[in-house]
């Protein structure tokens, strides 16, 4: 098959037989690392993620999360380098290491700083939300987490821009960045260079509205907005 090269990236190749008619929510292997010290919340978030077709690893502390990612200074990663994490969702209030501290560690790592981190908290404190976003968090969810929260997250991060037939997990943000460097194929990462023309076409429409959009300065200043807009300057 012409796509053999792509298949070597996949752990679950059986999903890619008969790819026609597969919906994005069924076929991609989004791996989420969920971090929460509450057993009840871990069980719920795990189920919420699984029901939206995500693969989940749930850990009970920031320390364990770092160990899993191989970022813990004390314990070296035991052959986890192949395990891709597409999203990290963490509780804010945890004993030992808070979600905020975990966020900083992740954003400070060259390997994982591109992985979107979402913070969950039962406390809807603006200052807290702001500091998390400033530190690079993708989103902030107020607990209790609902199915609609998880669906929304998954959709805007891994949703509509999925390449049909490739079945590859592509982070929408990265896709937007890639469309800007697609003019210089040598510099684009391998995963993006295999984009079918159709999909890059669907994206090329997005930069133009942005460049002419009358977005207010304050929205441009917001960290999440910056994240999405930086690479779309034409």
């Amino acid at each position, binding site marked *: 098959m012409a796509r053999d090269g792509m298949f070597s990236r996949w752990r679950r190749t059986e999903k890619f037989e008969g790819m026609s008619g597969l919906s994005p929510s069924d076929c991609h292997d989004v791996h989420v690392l969920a971090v929460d010290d*509450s*057993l*009840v*919340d871990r*069980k*719920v978030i795990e*189920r*919420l993620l699984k*029901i939206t077709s995500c693969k989940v690893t749930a850990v009970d502390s920031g320390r364990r999360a770092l160990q899993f990612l191989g970022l813990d200074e004390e314990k070296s990663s035991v052959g986890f380098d192949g395990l891709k994490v597409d999203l990290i969702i963490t509780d804010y*209030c945890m*004993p030992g290491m808070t979600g905020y501290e975990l966020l900083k560690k992740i954003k400070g790592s060259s390997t994982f700083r591109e992985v979107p981190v979402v913070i969950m908290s*039962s406390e809807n404190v603006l200052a807290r939300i702001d500091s998390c976003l400033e530190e690079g968090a993708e989103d902030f969810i107020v*607990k*209790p*987490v*609902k*199915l609609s929260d998880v669906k929304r997250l998954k959709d805007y991060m891994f949703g509509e821009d999925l390449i049909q037939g490739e079945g590859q997990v592509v982070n929408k943000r990265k896709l937007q960045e890639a469309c800007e460097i697609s003019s210089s194929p040598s510099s684009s990462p391998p995963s993006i260079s295999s984009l079918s023309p159709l999909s890059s076409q669907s994206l090329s429409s997005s930069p133009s509205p942005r460049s002419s959009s009358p977005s207010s300065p304050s929205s441009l200043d917001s960290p999440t907005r910056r994240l999405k807009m930086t690479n779309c300057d034409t």
Partner: protein
Amino acid sequence: MEVGQLQRKFVDYTASLFCEGFLDEQFTQLQQLQDESNPDFVVEVVSLFFEDTEKLLNDLTRALDQQSVDFKKVDAHVHQLKGSSSSIGAQRVRNACIAFRNFCEEQNTDACSKCLLQVKQEYSLVKNKLDTLFRLEQQIVEAGGAVPMVG
């Protein structure tokens, strides 16, 4: 009791729990996460909640019993309980925790002790209600019926 009657009883009972504020829409969320592949999800989560709460209530009792009360610790426990009760939709327990936390902030031992009593009461109530609900579910299933989706 035949299946139809049991199902009606179940529906009415569930509705009353929402009406009386014992449960809120987060409980409905949990019910929606249950399906044939995970038929016991709600019972499992609620059981975890019961275990977790019982431990927390013991810890709280001990903490408030100390000569010198560590309010930070007490608050941490209440925060945890508030979180888990909120996650399963145990509204009245959650609300009791909110009041409790205010008194922790004030470092008012007496008021905290009263709050703890209140939380224990609310927990006991909701536990009984949920146990009854799950028993009803079981009876329906044993009678060969399907558990109605409520809410």
